[in-house]
C-alpha cells in the first residue's frame, strides 16, 4: 500500500492509462542537501534507520569513513566521503574532503518507474516523491537497470527492491523526512521545490563570495529535475562527489526498450497472427492427393504401410 492516497498518485509503473487527475493542487517538494555545510556526522543515516526501522548488518572497515560501504536494502542513505585535490583561485593545490549524502534523487522522470514491469510497484506522487510499493514488486531488478544514479538495491533476503522513500509516510502527514529532522548543521532542508531552489541559489551566492566560483545547485535537467537537489562547491565537476553524474539521463537503451520497442513488437506479433488467419481464409491451404482420396472423409490412418 502506498503511503499516500490513490488520488495523490501521478504516475504508476507498467500502466498505460492515466492516473487520477482530479487532485493536482499539491506542491512539488524537494530535499536540499548542502554539501558545503555537511560535517559527515551520519545523524541522517541513523535517523533513517530509526524512522524506517532498518537494521543493516554491521560491515567492515575499508580504511575510509564510508560506513556502510554502499547503499543496500537496509541502508537507504549513505554518506560518501571523497578526498580530492582541487585548485584554489590562486592556482594552489588544496586537499578537500567532500561528503555527499547519497540516496534516491526522486527524479521527475524516474528511470526505475519507466523500466518496472509490475503495475503499481513504483509510483510517483503529485508531490514528486518516487515510492516503491513492495507488495507489487516482483524482484526482477529492472529498476536498477533503469536508474541513472545506481540507487535501488535488491534484498538478498526477500528479492524485493528497496530505496529511500523520502519518508513519504512522514511527508504525507505534514512532517519533514527523518534525515532532515536529525541534521545538526542545517545541511539538509526540506520544503517546496521552489523554496529549496531559492535557498540553494542563496547558498551558491555565499559560496561564490567565499571563493568557490563554480558553486552551483545540482538539479539535473536530463531527468527533468530531481526532488533531491544538492548545493555543490564544485558545481562544474559533480563527478568529484563520489562519481555523481554530470548529466544523468535515462539510458537511450532503456528508453528504446521501454518506449517504441514495446508497441512495435506487440503490433508485429498480432500482425503475424492476423496475416496467417486471413491468408488461410482467402488463399487457403496446400493439400496433397492423400488428403482427398476416399472423398477426404477419413483422416489418414496408421494402418498404411510404413516405408
Amino acid at each position, binding site marked *: 500500500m502506498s503511503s499516500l492516497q490513490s488520488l495523490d498518485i501521478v504516475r504508476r509503473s507498467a500502466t498505460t492509462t492515466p492516473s487520477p487527475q482530479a487532485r493536482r493542487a499539491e506542491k512539488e517538494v524537494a530535499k536540499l542537501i548542502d554539501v558545503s555545510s555537511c560535517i559527515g556526522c551520519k545523524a541522517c543515516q541513523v535517523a533513517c534507520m530509526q524512522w524506517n526501522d532498518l537494521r543493516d548488518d554491521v560491515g567492515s572497515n575499508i580504511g575510509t569513513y564510508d560506513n556502510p560501504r554502499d547503499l543496500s536494502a537496509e541502508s537507504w542513505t549513505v554518506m560518501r566521503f571523497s578526498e580530492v585535490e582541487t585548485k584554489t583561485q590562486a592556482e594552489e593545490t588544496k586537499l578537500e574532503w567532500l561528503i555527499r549524502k547519497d540516496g534516491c534523487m526522486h527524479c521527475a522522470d524516474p528511470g526505475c518507474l519507466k523500466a518496472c514491469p509490475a503495475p503499481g510497484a513504483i509510483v510517483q506522487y503529485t508531490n514528486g516523491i518516487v515510492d516503491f510499493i513492495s507488495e507489487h514488486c*516482483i524482484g526482477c531488478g529492472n529498476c536498477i537497470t533503469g536508474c541513472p544514479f545506481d540507487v535501488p538495491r535488491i534484498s538478498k533476503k526477500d528479492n524485493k527492491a528497496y530505496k529511500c522513500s523520502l519518508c513519504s509516510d512522514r511527508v504525507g502527514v505534514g512532517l519533514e523526512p527523518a534525515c532532515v529532522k536529525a541534521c545538526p548543521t542545517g545541511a539538509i532542508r526540506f520544503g517546496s521545490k521552489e523554496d529549496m531552489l531559492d535557498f540553494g541559489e542563496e547558498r551558491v551566492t555565499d559560496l561564490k563570495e567565499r571563493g568557490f566560483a563554480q558553486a552551483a545547485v545540482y538539479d539535473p535537467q536530463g531527468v527533468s529535475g530531481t526532488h533531491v537537489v544538492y548545493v555543490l562547491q564544485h558545481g562544474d565537476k559533480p563527478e568529484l562527489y563520489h562519481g555523481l553524474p554530470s548529466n544523468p539521463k535515462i539510458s537511450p*537503451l532503456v528508453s528504446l526498450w521501454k518506449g517504441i520497442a514495446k508497441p512495435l513488437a506487440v503490433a*508485429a506479433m498480432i500482425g503475424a497472427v492476423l496475416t*496467417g488467419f486471413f*491468408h488461410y481464409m482467402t488463399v487457403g*491451404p*496446400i493439400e496433397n492427393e492423400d488428403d482427398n482420396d476416399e472423398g477426404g472423409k477419413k483422416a489418414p490412418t496408421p494402418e*498404411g504401410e510404413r516405408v
Partner: protein
Amino acid sequence: MTRRYFQRYQRPDRINHWIVAICLFLAGLSGLALFHPSMYWFTNLFGGGPWTRILHPFLGVIMALGFARLFFRFRRDNVLTDADRQWNRTIFALLRGDKGNMPPAGKYNAGQKMMFWTFAISLLVLFVTGFLFWRPWFAHFFPITVVRLAVLLHAFAATMLVLCAIVHVYATIWVKGTLRAMTRGTVSEGWVRKNHPLWYRELTGHD
C-alpha cells in the same frame, strides 16, 4: 489401395521437439507478461508476478538446451544451397496460391531452413543475454551498460523468436498433412511428393 507413409521424425526427436515447443510457449507467455503491461495478467498463469520472474529463465534455459540438441541433429539438413535461392524468389507466388511453379525442395525447403537458422540465432542471443540480467544470481557480475544492452537485445531476439514460432505454427496449419510428422513421426507419400519431391526421389529412387 494401401497408403504409404514415410518416417520423418524419430521418437526421441519428437519428444525433444515438444519439450522445446512447450517451453517456448511458457517462456513466451511469461516473457510477454513482463514485456508489455497489457499482458501482465499472464503472470496469473504462473502463480503471480514473483513466480513468473522466477520461472521464466529456467523455462528459457530448458528451451535453449533442448533446441541445441535439435540443432546438432538437423543442422546438416538445413544448409542453404543455391537451389534455395530460387525457392526464395518464388515463395511470394506460392503465398498467393500459385502452387505450380515452386522449384523442387529436398527434406527441407528454403523457408524451413531459414526458419531453423532464425530459431537458432535468436535462441543463442536469448540464452546469452538472459544470463546477463538474471537476478538474483548473475546480473550483479556485469556492468550496467552491458545489462541495459542485454535487456534490449533479449526483447528483440524474443520478438524474432515469437514471430518465427507464429510462422512455424501457421505453416503446419497451412500445408495439410504436416502435423503428423511431429505427432506420429510419419508423413504420407502424397505429402512428400507434393512438398518435398527431391526427398521423395532420395527415399524411393524415382519421381
